[in-house]
Every structure is written in C-alpha cells, then in structure tokens.
C-alpha cells in the first residue's frame, strides 16, 4: 500500500540578517516541493553542501524553527506549517531526532540511560518496570547492553557507542520517521559503518523511515533508497539514490560527483568554477547554479527551472535535461 512518506508543499524559510543598513535576505529554503511515496519504509537522503538548507530543513521538520510558509507532511501527518498540527505526543511519535555530535546530544550532567528511560515513560506512557524493559530492548537492537550503559555519563562513551545510544532513544517511541542530521560525520571513518549499518537493519526491524541528512555522497549512496540534492535552498535533483548517484543528470549533481575524492578512481583535473558571494546566489531570480554551471544559457538567468519528471522516478530541475 503506497503511503506518502514525506511531502512538502512550497516550503519556504527566509532569514533576514543584518541591521538597518545592510539587510541580507537568505532564502534558506526556497519553494521546496517534495512528494515521496513508497509502500515500505525507506531511507531518504537529503544531500547538500554547506548553505544548502539541509540543516534548516531538519530544524523545520523537528519544530525547532517555524517555516515562513508552506507545510511538511510525514506519513500523512502535518508536522510543520499552518494547519491542524499534531499534539505534542503525536509529534513525538511521528518524528524523532538524531543529532550530529553525540556528545552534544546529551547533558553532561545526566546519565545517558536517564534519557532513554524518560522517553519510555513519558512518550510511551510506560511504568518504570515496563520502561526498563523497553530501554533494554532498544539498546540490544543497536548492539549495546543495558549493564554497560546504566549509570554512565556521556563522556564515558566512545562517539560510536554514544551515537548508537542516541539511535536507541529515538526508536523507543516507534516513530514514523527518524531525522538523522549528519549522524556519523563526527565519528571516525573505520567506526562509522557500525552506526550506518544499523539504519539499514532498523529500517526493517522497526518499520521506520529515515531522513538522512548529509554532505557525504558516498555514505548517501550506501545507505539511502531515495535522495534529494539541495543547493541554496532549492532542489536540483531528486530520485532513487543509486540511479541519481551513478547517472546524475543535473549539472550540479555531476559536479558534486566529480569532486568526491574516491578511493577507486582518480579525479579528472578539470578547473572548476568556485562559488561567488553567497548571499547573491540565494536571491538569484533564475537558476541558482547559473554562475557556476558549465551549460548555463540566457534562459537560466530569469527563469527558475521547472521540475522535469523522468521515467525512473526522478525529478530534475534544469532547463536542459
């Protein structure tokens, strides 16, 4: 049965910076329209470089920031924007976060298991004994033992273990979607896979979808089913992950893939155009990639590209596709 996993309607977030004289307007999210459907839980990758808007998107979906306009719908429930918003409890059962820095995700003054127990008792409305069972189950599913975790403070864990505890906590309420913001970027490369592989198994075990936010295309390839490429708040390409990353169609996606330092293929030593002043790019009328695009033409200056749907299910925002 096909469900709407993630849908956004003209999502906008505008920040205004600066004082009275130098006001800069940053369209962190600029008319983002997504409609991702599936009949089973999926891992959706939100890929972009710094300034792309991916972190803003995470904050909007987690209710930490209000969108300027537009809506976000997760599994048919409105989570952000104007309308019938869910109650606190409903929201906590719909989305749950995993943050980038595991050490910043917990207070240094509290034990890690206190957060897990609290989630079980307050979000799942369990009694203390039931909560302990739920926590134990969640920790086991991420490869940690309750005895090893109980009574310990965040700085007594390694980064990988602490992040896994974070994952366990996020799964206790059986959310529809887990929002993972760069979950492994602060973990050593050789230890990342233990956390990343977890997402793949837990997707099946808990029937939870994930929104995996990252700048790392290689990890996105490995773990995501579906991927969206963001640039200065606008979507450039969106579609099945493996297809988009092995056969990119948007010039920006191609540029990204050419620039990833691979371990099996050397770079093409072409010169690349670097980005100019960033605020200008945010407000550009036409396609935001105009200044750096190798195939840019006059039409790109004034007209924002409309989404072009392709047979393999992807959507590309370019005039020349």
């Amino acid at each position, binding site marked *: 049965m096909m469900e709407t996993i993630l849908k956004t309607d003209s999502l906008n977030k505008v920040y205004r910076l600066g004082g009275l004289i130098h006001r800069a307007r940053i369209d962190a999210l600029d008319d983002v329209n997504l409609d991702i459907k599936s009949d089973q839980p999926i891992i959706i990758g939100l890929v972009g470089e710094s300034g792309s808007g991916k972190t803003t998107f995470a904050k909007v979906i987690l209710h930490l920031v209000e969108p300027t306009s537009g809506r976000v719908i997760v599994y048919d429930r409105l989570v952000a924007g104007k309308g019938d918003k869910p109650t606190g409890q409903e929201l906590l059962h719909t989305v749950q976060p995993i943050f980038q820095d595991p050490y910043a995700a917990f207070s240094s003054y509290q034990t890690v298991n206190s957060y897990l127990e609290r989630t079980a008792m307050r979000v799942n409305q369990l009694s203390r004994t039931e909560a302990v069972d739920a926590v134990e189950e969640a920790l086991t599913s991420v490869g940690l033992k309750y005895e090893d975790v109980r009574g310990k403070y965040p700085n007594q864990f390694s980064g990988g273990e602490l992040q896994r505890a974070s994952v366990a906590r996020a799964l206790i309420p059986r959310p529809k979607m887990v929002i993972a913001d760069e979950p492994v970027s602060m973990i050593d490369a050789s230890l990342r896979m233990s956390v990343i592989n977890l997402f793949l198994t837990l997707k099946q075990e808990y029937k939870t979808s994930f929104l995996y936010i990252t700048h790392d295309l290689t990890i996105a390839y490995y773990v995501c089913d579906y991927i969206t490429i963001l640039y200065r708040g606008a979507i450039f390409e969106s579609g099945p992950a493996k297809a988009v990353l092995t056969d990119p169609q948007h010039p920006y996606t191609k540029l990204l893939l050419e620039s990833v330092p691979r*371990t099996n293929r050397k770079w093409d030593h072409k010169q690349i155009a670097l980005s100019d002043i960033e605020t200008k790019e945010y407000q550009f009328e036409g396609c935001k990639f105009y200044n750096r695009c190798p195939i840019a033409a006059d039409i790109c200056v004034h007209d924002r590209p409309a989404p072009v749907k392709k047979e393999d299910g992807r959507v590309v925002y370019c005039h020349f596709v």
Partner: protein
Amino acid sequence: MIKLSNLVASYTTARGQVNAVDGVNLQIPSEYIVGIAGESGCGKTTLIRVIYGDMSPPLSLEKGEVRYGFCDANGTEVTSDNIGDYWSKRISYIPQSSMSSLNPVTRIRKQFTDFLDYDKGRAELLDEVRAYVKNLDLPPEAIDAYPHELSGGMRQRILVAMATFFQPDILLADEPTTALDVVVQKGILLMLKRLQEQMQNTIILVSHDMGVHYQIAQKMLIMYAAKVVEFGDTREVFEAPLHPYTRFMIESLPTIGDDRVRQSVRGRPPSLWEDLKGCRFAPRCPMATERCRSEEPALREYRPGQFVACHYVERSLQ
C-alpha cells in the same frame, strides 16, 4: 629525505603525561606529496607539529630528533634544534582550522607580514605577494580583505598561497580541507598538487579522509595509537595493504557504485593512558597471537618501498 629518528613526543596535562607520538622511526623521501592517515588520537597532528618543530608546552619532544635534509649557512645539517630559524622560508605549516583562526579584526596582509621577518620593505613584499597570488589564479584583492569578507575556501587558498610564497622545501598541512565543501576541497587539493609540481618540494598532508590521500598523495603513512603501522606508495597501500588495520579500514569504506556490505573495524583504539604492551592493534586483530600481545612489531621494509609493523604480514595477506 626527512629523517625521523625515534621520535617520542608527549603532552603533559593535569592528569599526567601521555605520549602522543611513541617511537616513530622513518625516512620520508623528498619531492613527494606524502599523506599521513589515521583516526582521532592516532598522533598525526602531533607528528606534524614535531616535524615543524612547534614544540610549545604542554607538548614536548621527549626523545629523538628530525633531520631535514638541508644544511644551514655553515654547512651543518638542520635538525629539530634549529628548524625554527627556517620557518616560512624553508619549512611552512598550515595548522588545522587555520582558516577559522585568522584574526578577525586585522586584514589578511597584516597577518602575513606579522609573521615574517624579511629583508625588503613591507610594501615591496606585499606587491610580490599580490603578484604571486595572481599567478595562482586568486584575486590579489583578497590580501587586503578582512577574513570574514572571504569564503572559507578562499581563505584557505590564500593561506596556502602565503605558506608557499617563499617556496619552502617542506610544506606541512594539517587537515587543510576538512571543514570545506567537496567541490572547494577538490580545488584546493589540486592547487596543492600543482604547487608541488612547480616547486618540486615535499608536501606532507594530514587527513583522516582516505579518499584525499588516494587522489593526491604519492606516498602514504598510516598511524595508529601513536605509532606508524604502514608506509609506502599510496597505490600499493590501497591495492595491497600490508597491515591488518589498513586493510580493515580500507575495506570498511563505502564507494559509489559498489554495493557490497561494509563493516566497521570492531572494537576501538586503545587509550594512550594505559600501559600498552606489544602490538597496539592486537586487541582488535583477528590474527593476534601471544607474540603480538607481548612483543611490539618494528616497522620494517617488507617490499621495496613498502614498510609495515606487523609480525604476520604473510598470514594477513592470505
């Protein structure tokens, strides 16, 4: 040839003393881009600082020395004792997050002239710097800007330009592209590669990203728990890694286009505060024997140009 002899460098903290580099013995050939790879706590930043000679407390060089392969005015070889005299002229260092560490209230050019002593006048020097920067396809106006006016990538490129202005024999860069976007990173790394080809000098580059090494480092050394475990041609290290740690690490990295399942290296690196005996990777190594746990393997040349510190290289290659 940069000779590292029995280097032991330690940090003295309230908790005690810990050896961040614990016995490194290596000869790094000149005129290559050499990558130092390893994970957090392995000692790569400390090793770079030791090579640069930047030993300020709490860091101190307990034992050993570095010989740089060039001589001073009297003809004696320069070592760790007097390398400080050659900073910026014959050896240059770009520290980690240096692009975020620029003084925000002074222009870039002042930070450049603050750090050098030079024979000519300041204005003349700056003109030459601007010309040099222009030659590298960078806007010469950037020298006169404040750090916040430039993007992170531009700042880093300017820093690289300033570090190479005097055409040093050795350029040390610690994670020069870590905080930068992948497209900007490629630009800076290619810039470094071109500079090395032009200047025919040695660039030693620290990065935790194996992909960076694969792309531009010709030689590579892998550090683990304050020791060097492997050293050699990058291509060989990737295609036929000798040390189990190197092999597991490379195998754990996903690649675009490759759908195989990847696994982490199990366990975690040892704490340097503990009393470490034998091979430091033994607790995590599936082939470890009693010998590994009690006897520390020395770094030896297994194949011409490929060095490894492991007792059972033949076994691990199977």
